[in-house]
């Protein structure tokens, strides 16, 4: 089960999945919770400075994959490499050091309730740097202003709306000027304008700071706006991988279906019966074969 700690990955394999100058690689990731397989053989490679989007329906394992990549949860099998090093094979102290270069914006905010919003943002700076307090406050305020929350700096997290909490979480994720940031559904539950501002912020973070970002999202237009590369997950399996253009030109019906957000067509048999019951149609539908 723990072969990932010892076995090295064959070079051809890396070439095959297009891994060159990658910051992060996930290899053969397989995850089980209580014997239930949640992720099944996910491979991906994320290049330095790009925005990598993980798309997929609810419950398909996106958050779980993100937790693996951020060093929070080792997969059942497979390995996660950052800068070519297996992050679950290195000593814990080294992983801690690595974590100070990563930011994580949690799906539900995960702000600390015992302190104000600004203190939440300043917390990592206060704990992990030697900066003077005056600068820390200003850094915190800069980050809050980036997400449009500076007016809420003295509020308690419990007094924020869901969308505000999410934006505060984004501000905290970038507080330390990380090199690699994970966003778990940064714009879910936000209004379209704020969501677009978040997309814009993510793009700016890429161009201004060259931050590598991994973004989990449901929002297909947003995904295609920001992504350099993306992976489409369905039930823990990778359905498609590549640049937005490659995904768009995919012929796989499941991909087309997900991207096109087409609802599955209504079953004519059910509609007919409904019409009959509702009195719209006086004819009882003919019974169909079980396989049709």
């Amino acid at each position, binding site marked *: 089960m723990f072969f990932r700690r010892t076995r090295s990955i064959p070079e051809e394999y890396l070439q095959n999945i297009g891994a060159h100058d990658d910051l992060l690689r996930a290899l053969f990731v397989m995850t089980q919770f209580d014997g239930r397989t949640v992720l099944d053989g996910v491979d991906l490679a994320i290049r330095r400075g790009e925005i990598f989007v993980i798309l997929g329906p609810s419950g398909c394992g996106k958050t779980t994959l993100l937790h693996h990549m951020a060093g929070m949860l080792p997969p059942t099998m497979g390995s996660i490499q950052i800068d070519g090093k297996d992050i679950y094979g290195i000593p814990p102290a080294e992983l801690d050091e690595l974590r100070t270069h990563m930011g994580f914006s949690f799906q539900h905010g995960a702000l600390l*309730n*015992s302190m104000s919003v600004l203190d939440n943002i300043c917390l990592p700076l206060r704990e992990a*740097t*030697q*900066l*003077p307090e*005056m*600068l*820390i406050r*200003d*850094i915190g*305020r*800069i*980050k809050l*202003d*980036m997400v449009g929350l*500076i007016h809420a*700096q*003295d509020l*308690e*997290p*419990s*007094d924020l709306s869901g969308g505000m909490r999410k934006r505060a979480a984004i501000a905290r994720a970038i*507080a330390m*000027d990380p090199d690699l940031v994970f966003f778990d559904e940064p714009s879910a539950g936000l209004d379209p304008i704020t969501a677009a501002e978040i997309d814009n*912020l993510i793009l*700016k973070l890429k*161009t*201004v*700071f060259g931050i590598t970002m991994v973004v989990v999202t449901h929002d297909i237009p947003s995904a295609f706006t920001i992504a350099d590369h993306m992976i489409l997950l369905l039930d823990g399996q990778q359905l498609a991988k590549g640049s937005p253009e490659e995904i768009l030109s995919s012929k796989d019906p499941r991909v087309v279906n997900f991207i096109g957000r087409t609802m599955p067509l209504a079953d004519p048999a059910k509609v007919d019966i409904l019409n009959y019951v509702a009195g719209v149609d006086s004819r009882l539908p003919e019974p169909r074969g079980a396989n049709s």
Partner: protein
Amino acid sequence: MSPSATESVAILMPSRFDRETVPALLQEVRRGIHEGQHRICLDLREVESFDSAGMALVVGALRAAREAGLQIEIQGVQDSVYDFFSLVSVERLLEEPQALPRPGFIEGLGGLALPLAEGSQKGAILIGRSMWGWVLSPFRGQKLRLGKIAEEIFQAGNGAMFIVALIGFLLGLILAMQAWVQLKIFGADIFVADMVAVGVTREIGPLMTGVLVAARSGSSIAARLGTMVINEEVDALEQMGIHPNRYLVAPKVLGLAMATPCLTLVFCTMAILGGWLFGVTTVGLDAMAYIEQTHQALRTADILAAVIKGATFGALIAAVACSLGLGVRGGPEGVGRATTRAVVTSIFLIILVDAFFVLFVKLGA
């Protein structure tokens, strides 16, 4: 030095303008603002890489200069720095909101007393409302939820049984010891039995049991309800037309009102047992004589008083804990506050009500 040199101070920012270099620069900028008379200039021409700490320094310098009434100029700004500042509004960053004033000493004292009064009042109102709602519920075609009450009795009663019994036993032992020290002077050793039996049943038993139940069940009820409030579970119940008073509060009040007298009786029995053990082993009293003495000393009224007190205390504890739990605001912090308050307020109320009991009995006699 020429006058123009002191009028304008220029500070050159290094190529790496980040967390490592900024703390030292902060000193320099402060000095510059202190020395400068009209103008200060931040020169960013050399900057190759920067981070938020660098940008925070720029913002800090702008603010400090504005406060000192100096002109400030930023030179050599590159595209990347412009890009950075396109994400924020410098004007917004420069205005700091006013800090909230802290409460003074007297207000602080008020802040200590107020929760007691508030908790007591809310608890009393809640007892009335929830019981009324409960009594009416069969007439409104709603279920009485007897199963829920049984569950509450079990939770409060069974969990506390061991600790109540243990403390009761030890207290009886201690009480007998204390009584004996006094009574043996008069050669009235056998009256240790009376002291323990009456003292425990009328006063100490209900009181101690009340305090234990407040600490155990009161705190847990307040915490559970408070958590439900912040998770919007209580709102959800209300929205579904399930009134929290009837669904959550009434079973807890009734449950504790029934469990506490039982626990009180356990406490008293164990305390008498403790006294008996002391009397028989240390004082050398006859085992049967002690029991006979206890039997004579205790009147039915004493036991009834213990039961009534226990029921009253139980209901009080549940009502206070429920009202404070349902009143939680402000996230997990609020839950913590409500839990502490529930224990403090209900212990205070127990003692207050106990004092009334004593007064009532004295006046009645």
